[in-house]
């Protein structure tokens, strides 16, 4: 009897729900497409207070995260008292306060400066679910504060997107800052430029080896465009290819066992594969036209290059094993400098239209071509960041030619190099 009553009770409880018909609705876009982030100023944990340290860390982190396009920053003026409290554990953070300000993510941190030694603790919190997402402790010297900020920006991107950011990498480029066209290296935000060569000649077209330890570039040091390789840490340099004519646009294969480049030793510029000692391993192209600017696919099986074999210069793709070559671009009268994206799905290139060069991207099957740069000036030499989120390129839209960075959809463009010198041919290193 008791059991029967209990069953009836249960059924009576369940009835309203079962009688409730489910209604379908569809939400086809998020209400907000950028994550509200509160980035607090880091507070001194031990040692003296240094506004330079906290200010510089904050500035670098903000610039990196802003470039990512992922965030909308909550105005620091609106911050309440939790921003002034040291609390790196989720139990110590006043999450309702941050919710009140509309933040969904929160970055808090501390620093301790003891002499030249600097320790930075940084945390990323999920405000809605009240939990710590990621945290890092960096130990170094006071001069490393920018590197620490870049490293934490990479970590934030890794936590939120599953893929590490490219901000700790470096950018190689050609600049005439010293009076000659030399090879330089800088941070991805344009800071800490270092000159790598002193050829007192014309240096051009640098490219990193896939592991980032070496750079390939062409130099006219010996009055001929020869291909050089240079170890970044040791500074050791060697001539790799010095055949008569062009030895330009050297690109190391993802396997690091081969180098694709353009040689004109027989008169007509063609693409060849060299081994790492500079010996020719294979001729890739053989046409009456000019073939140049090779760029490896991430799997190392194909090369994108420029050829005018069918009239105007266009982007072509060739399989290095079968030799099967297909034309990728069909529009424009002058296409140049293809760069295969690290995800393998898109290729960036330059096209001249209306007397001006602009950056475009296209799918590797020739579909979905998009123009990324607009406005005045020529934008050329596009290269991808190692995660494929950004593109760097050179442009003279600000007067003197300089290095610019933008998101891979063409938004968020900003100049990295100063207006004092002429800079071009950028290349983004693998993760440093």
């Amino acid at each position, binding site marked *: 009897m008791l059991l029967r009553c209990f069953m009836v009770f249960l059924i009576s409880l369940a009835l309203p729900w079962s009688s409730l018909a489910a209604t379908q*609705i569809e939400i086809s*876009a*998020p209400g*907000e497409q950028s994550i509200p982030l509160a980035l607090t100023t880091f507070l001194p944990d031990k040692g003296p207070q240094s506004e330079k340290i906290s200010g510089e860390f904050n500035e670098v982190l903000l610039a990196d995260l802003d470039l990512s396009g992922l965030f909308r920053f909550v105005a620091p003026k609106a911050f309440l008292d939790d921003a002034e409290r040291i609390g790196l554990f989720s139990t110590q953070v006043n999450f309702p306060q941050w919710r009140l300000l509309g933040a969904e993510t929160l970055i808090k941190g501390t620093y301790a400066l003891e002499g030249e030694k600097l320790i930075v603790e940084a945390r990323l919190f999920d405000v809605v679910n009240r939990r710590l997402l990621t945290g890092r402790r960096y130990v170094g010297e006071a001069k490393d504060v920018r590197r620490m900020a870049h490293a934490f920006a990479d970590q934030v991107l890794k936590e939120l997107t599953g893929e590490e950011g490219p901000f700790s990498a470096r950018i190689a480029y050609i600049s005439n800052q010293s009076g000659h066209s030399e090879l330089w290296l800088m941070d991805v935000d344009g800071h800490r430029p270092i000159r790598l060569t002193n050829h007192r000649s014309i240096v051009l077209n640098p490219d990193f080896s896939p592991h980032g330890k070496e750079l390939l570039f062409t130099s006219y040091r010996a009055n001929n465009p020869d291909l050089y390789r240079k170890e970044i840490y040791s500074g050791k340099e060697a001539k790799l290819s010095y055949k008569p004519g062009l030895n330009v646009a050297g690109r190391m294969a993802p396997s690091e066992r081969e180098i694709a480049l353009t040689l004109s030793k027989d008169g007509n510029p063609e693409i060849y594969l060299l081994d790492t000692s500079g010996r020719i391993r294979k001729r890739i192209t053989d046409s009456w036209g000019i073939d140049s600017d090779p760029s490896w696919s991430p799997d190392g099986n194909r090369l994108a290059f420029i050829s005018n074999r069918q009239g105007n210069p266009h982007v072509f793709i060739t399989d290095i094993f079968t030799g099967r070559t297909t034309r990728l671009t069909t529009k424009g009268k002058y296409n140049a400098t293809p760069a295969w994206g690290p995800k393998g*799905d898109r290729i960036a290139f330059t096209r001249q239209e209306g007397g001006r060069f602009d950056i475009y991207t296209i799918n590797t099957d020739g579909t979905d071509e998009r123009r990324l740069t607009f406005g005045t000036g020529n934008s050329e030499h596009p290269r991808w960041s190692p995660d494929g989120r950004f593109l760097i390129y050179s442009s003279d839209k600000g007067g003197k030619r300089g290095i610019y960075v933008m998101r891979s959809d063409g938004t968020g463009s900003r100049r990295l190099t100063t207006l004092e010198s002429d800079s071009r041919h950028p290349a983004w290193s693998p993760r440093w």
Partner: protein
Amino acid sequence: MSVVPLRQNNTFHKDPKFGRLLLVSLIAHVLVLVVFSVDLFGTKVRYKPPVYYVDLIHKPVLNPQAGRPDPRPVSKPKPEPVKPAAQTVTPAVPREPVKPEVKPLVKPTPAAEPKPKPKPAEKPVPKPTEKPVAKPVQAKEQKLQSALDEIRERQAREAEREALKDKLAKLRDSVGAAATVPADVPVGMPDGQGDEVGVSALAFVQAFIQQNWVLSPYLLDQSRIADFEAVATLNYSASGSLTSYSVDRLSGNKQFDDSLKTAIVKSRQLAQPLPKELKLVVTFNLKDIAAARR
């Protein structure tokens, strides 16, 4: 002397007062309970009423009437009187200042003529012999022509503007903003067929969840934007609280799935009570973003 174990000698001695003490203790306990549970002194029970935010205009209802969901046009009557005035002018001459310009241009040509009606405009034409007169006439004609051209241009611009307005109105209608609906139209839904004053409960919940859904497309593989889709079942009580939810199908992308779970958590309490409890099967996708990029 033999030692007798204590336990063997000690028999349990029952205290005669024990029962009484137990009873007293029981009564004391009951009394304490009564004192704390029964309102002996007539003190008012502190009842903390729940606070409901009730918007009588946007009240979610099941069967909304036909009308406008957005009660904004309080200030709309202002432009209304201007609009018909502009419309009446457009077919003929768009702006008043233009009219006087036309007449003086027509008048001077028949300077000697007594009647300044449109006909005299032709009169100067058959008198080309008088050169000194003809020149000013020509100039005036040119002026007249240019004025007419200007009028035509303005008319064309007005017509264009009207066409754009019509287009905008149609667009607004299509998105249900009902902005072109006059101010006195009752609150409801553009496609409402019921008889209740308020907005559709489903549309309300949908907008509420969407507002709480934060996802940057930069978190995702851009080439797969159109493929991301997840389905969740949400049960809301009549008070607008999320009583339970389950994610029935995930997209497989951590960022996308996490973002919609967060949106559900943020939507656990709606801003308005619902007309009744609701069971919703919500499909989350990025079709609008994908369409915008095409």
